[in-house]
């Protein structure tokens, strides 16, 4: 198991390095520097600014010191637009919020999706099954940026039940979580259903039934574990998509997470913050994929370490 984890880590670390180098080179090759503005700066001022931010060093040295800053102090450097704030401060402000509704959405998508999928598979071809399939097909065309305005229209404007935006208490969490989790819940339900249907016809389930185990135990102990494999491999991409979706949630519900920081910095051309967020998200993704891989190796006996 340990060597398996190490092997996965051996992929994860270069991935992170590649990500950092790619985004750094992208930023570096962008037309116009961070100090380009409508008002032409005197050349001396520009030179001093470049010297202050280390932009007059050779490229390899810039990449090196940027990486070293991240590795040694977890420091993403200063913001290019807000002179008095560091990228870390900007990220630290939004990250807990993103984490809160992100984890909640993830939990909702997995728990509701898996339950719905299992229920649909166990009651195959019943009304419940048809409803579950219908819901999951419908929800496929309802990504977060479609769900968000619909939710606000119904629950804020028509019914007046929920606040339309902000981040002050649990009632502010409901709509972001629904908007973010719906389409993933649908996909998870669909994957669970089809893999559960397949597992339920397999030999070991027939054996379990033949030896007289109660159906409940057959489903929960014997069928659920192997049926979870395709779901687990979907969780990696789903996690990435959810982080991406958090940008929409932050913008539309004014929740103030890192997505807001990202779009603001994109509009302000604050490359430092954009890179910081991109790398942070990339690191999270890589870490999460690692967890998923380990989980997969733990559940699937066919994987050799």
């Amino acid at each position, binding site marked *: 198991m340990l060597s398996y984890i190490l092997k996965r880590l051996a992929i994860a670390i270069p991935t992170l390095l590649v990500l950092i180098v790619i985004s750094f080179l992208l930023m570096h090759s962008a037309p116009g520097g961070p100090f380009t503005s409508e008002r032409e700066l005197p050349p001396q001022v520009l030179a001093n600014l470049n010297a202050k931010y280390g932009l007059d060093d050779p490229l390899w040295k810039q990449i090196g010191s940027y990486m070293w800053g991240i590795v040694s102090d977890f420091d993403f450097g200063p913001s290019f637009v807000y002179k008095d704030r560091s990228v870390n401060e900007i990220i630290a402000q939004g990250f807990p919020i993103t984490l809160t509704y992100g984890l909640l959405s993830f939990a909702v998508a997995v728990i509701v999706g898996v339950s719905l999928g299992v229920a649909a598979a166990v009651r195959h071809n019943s009304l419940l099954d048809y409803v579950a399939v219908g819901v999951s097909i419908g929800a496929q065309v309802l990504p977060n*940026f479609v769900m968000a305005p619909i939710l606000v*229209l119904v629950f804020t*404007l028509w019914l007046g039940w929920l606040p339309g935006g902000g981040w002050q208490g649990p009632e502010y969490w409901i709509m972001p979580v629904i908007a973010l989790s719906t389409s993933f819940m649908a996909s998870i339900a669909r994957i669970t259903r089809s893999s559960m249907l397949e597992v339920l016809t397999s030999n070991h389930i027939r054996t379990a039934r033949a030896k007289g185990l109660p159906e409940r135990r057959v489903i929960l102990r014997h069928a659920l574990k192997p049926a979870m494999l395709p779901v687990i491999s979907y969780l990696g991409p789903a996690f990435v998509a959810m982080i991406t979706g958090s940008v929409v949630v932050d913008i539309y519900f004014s929740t103030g997470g890192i997505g807001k920081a990202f779009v603001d910095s994109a509009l302000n051309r604050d490359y430092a913050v*954009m890179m910081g967020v991109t790398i942070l998200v990339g690191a999270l993704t890589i870490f999460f994929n690692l967890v998923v891989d380990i989980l997969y190796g733990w559940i699937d006996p066919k994987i050799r370490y």
Partner: protein
Amino acid sequence: MVMTSEQRVEAGEIVGKGRSPWADARRRFFRNKAALMGLVILGFVVAFALFGGYFAQWSNEELDYNVMGQIVELGGPSIESGHYFGTDDLGRDLFARTIQGTQISLAVGLVGALIACIVGTLYGAVAGYAGGRTDGIMMRLVDIFMAVPYMFVLILLLVMYGRSITILFAGIGLISWMEMARIVRGQTLTIKGREFVEAARATGVSAPVIILRHIVPNLLGVIAVYATLLVPLMILTESFISFLGLGVQEPLTSLGALISEGAGTIAYGTTWQLGFPLLFFCLTLFGLFFVGDGLRDALDPKDR
């Protein structure tokens, strides 16, 4: 067993005509009701995007000064004013803008999927055909790229190199070829051991020609399926970016940008601004998903 003449004709007909795998696939596809429904929906959306402009009373850039400032009262959908879908908050005709948005969204979907297909197919076929260490390195690279949060990188690209539609097309295509490369590589591995490839190699055909002439044509079915399933994903990606206001720029618009505008103004009660773009967005995705699923059932040898 003695056959009646009719049976003989029937049998003769089958033998005489033969059925190609493509004809088989076509038959399976047209028997699939959901796929047919998807095709009809898709046909409607495409017809709307192509020919809807002939019915529009206004262009997508014209401002209607009669309704300006009173959008909520006068800007609603009506036949008399010529604004079949109403107007947006600036008094522009939503019918014309929805047509234009649908065009852009479909174009982004098609071009993005095409780029992803070409890059992914070539990459996957080369990796699979080369095998060994080259294959290992190429696929490990794909693993690495797949962990990159591409939406953020794409936005980074758009911000840095200007929000032009070319960058959007290329960027969307270039971030989504990885899945395709994996699938094509897997299929190539099975094809490259077959006799006709061996024969080609034995007669001295060069590797690039074998890949392009002998391997890729045998993958067309799989490629077609995943290309169709890629189109809606490309549309989703573009709409996502446009929703954030980072996609196509005015006066051009896309369904995502229109949904974003509609979402921003629902508080004033102009629900049609959200409703019509949303309707066409959902119809497009529905159609594409159903057609893609139908094609997969018809063409993908795995699921038979």
